[in-house]
């Protein structure tokens, strides 16, 4: 069973802040991590490989430093990694990103399953997984909790609000991994050493024969025009601070 896992390198959101003067993200000194749901996706792929054999390829689109995330994926146990990096990709929205990743997946070829994370911690749209499946014309199951493979078919248990849904689909297919799917393994020292030696090819748009019109700014109908910190309704002034003994009586009225 050959699996392609899409991983995104994201800033560690717990440390993100906005420059009050320029209203842009302060990225300096903010560490980059693998999008946490993508670690669940990698773990799911590795478990399927352990059960059914095959290979796991990690795929990322991003600037050259996204290679670090791919190295980490290799250290966890992925067999290969591919980086799609091209200046013309800057400003890609979810439509353009899905298109490029789908083209790269087709170039890699020979896959039975594509696994994405449920959503990315930065953009937070959860659109890229479903977008890739649409571009490839393959079935998809989002919010995967459990998977079972049966020959050329697969069953996926999905976590919905208040219920579980089990669906069946033919391979090749795409799933997006929920955090409740598994606990991602840590890369061991041996994995880290082996990952260091591996070659990670970097593909440009030309390498994957993508239409430049469908990539980057020209391929992106949406634009982020402004970002700002969330408004906190300030009840501070009206906040009444009581001590414990006094408050409950008043509250109960």
């Amino acid at each position, binding site marked *: 069973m050959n699996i392609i896992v899409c991983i995104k390198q994201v*800033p560690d*959101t*717990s440390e*993100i*802040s*906005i420059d009050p003067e320029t209203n842009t*993200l302060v990225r300096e000194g903010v560490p980059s991590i693998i999008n946490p749901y993508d670690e669940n996706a990698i773990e799911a792929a590795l478990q399927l490989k352990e059960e059914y054999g095959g290979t796991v390829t990690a795929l990322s689109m991003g600037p050259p430093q996204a290679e670090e995330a791919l190295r980490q994926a290799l250290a966890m146990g992925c067999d290969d990694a591919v980086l799609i990096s091209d200046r013309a990709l800057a400003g890609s929205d979810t439509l353009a990103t899905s298109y490029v990743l789908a083209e790269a997946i087709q170039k890699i070829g020979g896959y039975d399953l594509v696994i994405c994370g449920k959503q990315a*911690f*930065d*953009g*937070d749209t959860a659109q890229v997984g479903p977008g890739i499946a649409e571009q490839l014309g*393959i*079935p*998809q*199951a989002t919010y995967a909790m459990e998977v079972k493979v049966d020959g050329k078919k697969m*069953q996926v248990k999905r976590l919905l*609000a*208040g*219920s*579980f*849904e*089990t*669906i*069946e*689909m*033919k391979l090749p297919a795409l799933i997006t991994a929920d955090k*409740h799917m598994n606990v991602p393994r840590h890369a061991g020292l041996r994995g880290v050493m082996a990952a260091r030696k591996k070659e990670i090819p970097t593909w440009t748009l030309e390498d994957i024969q993508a239409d430049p019109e469908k990539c980057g700014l020209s391929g992106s*109908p*949406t*634009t*982020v*025009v*402004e*970002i*700002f*910190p*969330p*408004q*906190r*309704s*300030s*009840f*501070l002034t*009206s*906040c*009444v*601070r*009581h*001590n*414990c003994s006094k*408050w*409950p*009586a008043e*509250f*109960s009225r």
Partner: protein
Amino acid sequence: MQTRPAFGGNIMARIVTRNHRPQMATVRPRVMQRLESPPEHTAEIVEVPVSFDENSIMTKIIDIARDEAAGQVNLQDAEIIVSGGRGLKKPENFAIIRELADALGGVVGASRPTVDDGWIAPYHQVGQTGSTVQPRLYIACGISGAVQHLAGMSGADCIVAINTDPAAPIFEVAHYGIVGDVFEVVPALTEIAREELGSG
């Protein structure tokens, strides 16, 4: 133009789609007031025949199972929510939250770290990566008030916060703030609720 949270609720982003029509956006549950449909309003419902090839359906639903644990927690429709955070110190201490929720006829909510650490089931989580709620009353017990938590509950009509730290950000959104120990305040509230509401 759409305004949407990103970066786990740490920032809001305005998105514009200048040249493409039609466009599509989805609305997060409970961020807008639900409208009643006016009783006199009528509309014509038109049935449109559709035909498609069954083979073009790529996925087949083979089972839908109720999630028993989730069935008991309906945060999104709850009128009263009592939520616990890491200030509870230990998983067992969610008992005091449950008691107060029962006494008030409400449901139990939780902050994310308590869910991540397995103190309580995931369906209780309120916030950016949990449920967005809009109860009449939200009581936050031992919750600091991180933006990701506030993203899910700041729409509550009345917010009560109980926290030992007077500088906790939860007090910035609270209508009533109690600087105090949850282990004293919560049981005291439960007692009063039981007496006055005759519950439990």
